[in-house]
């Protein structure tokens, strides 16, 4: 997911870090709010707040709480309970259409999060409203809290599901920055329809002892493992 967020903030989203409330900005909603550390890092990198503040993440008194918080500059919406981000983004996309604005609304969801029925309520409605300014990105890493997505509730065929719901779908390698950029440049994938980008990813990508390991959904690396992970990532930057 870090690759998708990095490219979004570097190349795709129209933003003005000096004015987080700029009316024409694209709206980005992180629905899988537990992955907020990635978003905080991107926001700091592009200048919404200082990179040094990242050190306070999750600490007593910090505004960088461990599920994404709208108290942080650049964050549109607090999430944490899954299944809330897409309906909210749909409302923003509808607001743009009804009031003549040109901004787009992005929602980034996990694949496991698609178990929540509230998402499917929004997935049904968005094509009905022809919200081609709504972009749903699915971080499809195939792992959820208690096991693989295939074992818990198999979502496949995921692309065909969205196509049947009348979304325009593209499916990419979610670690390929050029593929992410190209998809972003092609938005909306079809005028008059909402866009769905399925980003196939590998949980813990780039760190051999973390890749596809459920345990690393929960664990924090100690100093030694952190050094090893960083060394691997710096050796093979994506």
């Amino acid at each position, binding site marked *: 997911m870090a690759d998708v967020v990095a490219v979004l903030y570097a190349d795709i989203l129209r933003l003005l870090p000096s004015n987080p409330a700029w009316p024409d900005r694209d709206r980005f909603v992180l629905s899988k709010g537990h992955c907020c550390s990635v978003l905080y890092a991107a926001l700091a990198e592009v200048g919404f707040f200082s990179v040094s503040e990242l050190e306070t993440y999750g600490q007593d008194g910090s505004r960088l709480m461990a599920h994404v918080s*709208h108290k942080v500059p650049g964050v*549109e*919406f*607090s*999430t*944490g*309970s899954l*299944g*809330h981000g*897409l*309906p*909210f*983004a*749909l*409302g*923003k*996309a*509808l*607001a*743009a259409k*009804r*009031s003549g*604005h040109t901004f787009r*609304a992005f929602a980034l969801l996990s694949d496991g999060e698609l178990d929540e*029925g*509230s998402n499917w*309520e*929004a997935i*049904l*409605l968005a094509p009905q*409203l022809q919200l081609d300014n709504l972009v749903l990105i699915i971080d499809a890493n195939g792992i959820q809290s208690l096991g693989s997505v295939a074992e818990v509730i198999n979502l496949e065929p995921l692309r065909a599901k969205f196509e049947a719901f009348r979304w325009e779908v593209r499916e990419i390698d979610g670690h390929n920055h050029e593929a992410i950029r190209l998809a972003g440049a092609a938005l909306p994938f079809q005028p008059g329809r909402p866009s769905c980008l399925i980003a196939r990813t590998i949980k813990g990508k780039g760190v051999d002892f973390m890749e596809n390991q459920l345990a690393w959904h929960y664990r924090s690396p100690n100093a030694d493992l952190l050094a090893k992970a960083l060394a691997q990532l710096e050796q093979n930057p994506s």
Partner: protein
Amino acid sequence: MRTAFIEELTAQARINPAIFLVVGDLGYSVIEPFAAEFPDRFLNAGVAEQNMAGLAAGLASEGFHVFTYSIANFPTLRCLEQIRNDICYHNLPVTSVAVGAGLAYGNLGYSHHAVQDIAIFRTLPNLRLLSPADPGEARGAVQWLSANPCPSYLRLGKAGEKHLYSSPPLSPNPVVVQPGNPDVALVATGSVLSIALDAAALEAAAGRPAPTVFSMPWLHPASPATTATLRSFKHVICLEEHIREGGLREMLASLLPRSIRVSGLALPSNATVAVGSQNFLRAAAGLTATHAQQLILSRDDDA
């Protein structure tokens, strides 16, 4: 009450371009005038209340004051977490409007009885809970909301409620509907105000001083005026079409000095099993003018 609501909302929408109505595929023969006059500020979100509340928050975050409309527990309990997180936590101007407070949809059964909502909504941050008694109070609530957009819950009756009195503009204060005995207050919220007025009339007909009758269309958060207004009474009797737990009586009992006796009529917390009209079920639960009269006449050591 629902007709008064939609008429007033339509009138407000003519002067307030922020007002947006989202319905959950309910409101047949009620909401059409608004939809016809303001198609760009109307949406039928379908039978999908979680999405309705979430998208309402999204619309509200872009400057609209959104009214979500459905019946009974659908726009409230079905999407409670969206109201808690998306609307209240973000302090966004969305008014959840439920038609059919209490037992108004009596014969449709327990699924349609909205009897826990006051208790639950009193716990939500930033939220105003408005519970009008008649069409006039409903109009006043919409006027206030239009001028004061905020996270809010509008608890409406259904149809055919009588015009009970000439209500003042909505404020946080309890409203004196009928002055009377300075020691005994009969305080109602919602359409059971009619029962309070009937009980007062029974007392007057019996040649006794009728209690002072109050309406509380503004239910939560309680204002200092609530305590200030009621603390001169010796006995405060509450009427509510809601279970006792977490309702009006518990609220006032926690606000008023212990020297004041607070009693009241409410619904039992166990689910109704009988089928019946609103009036039938009210009577079965003891929510009647006669029972209110018994409380007026009761002594301190009675129930």
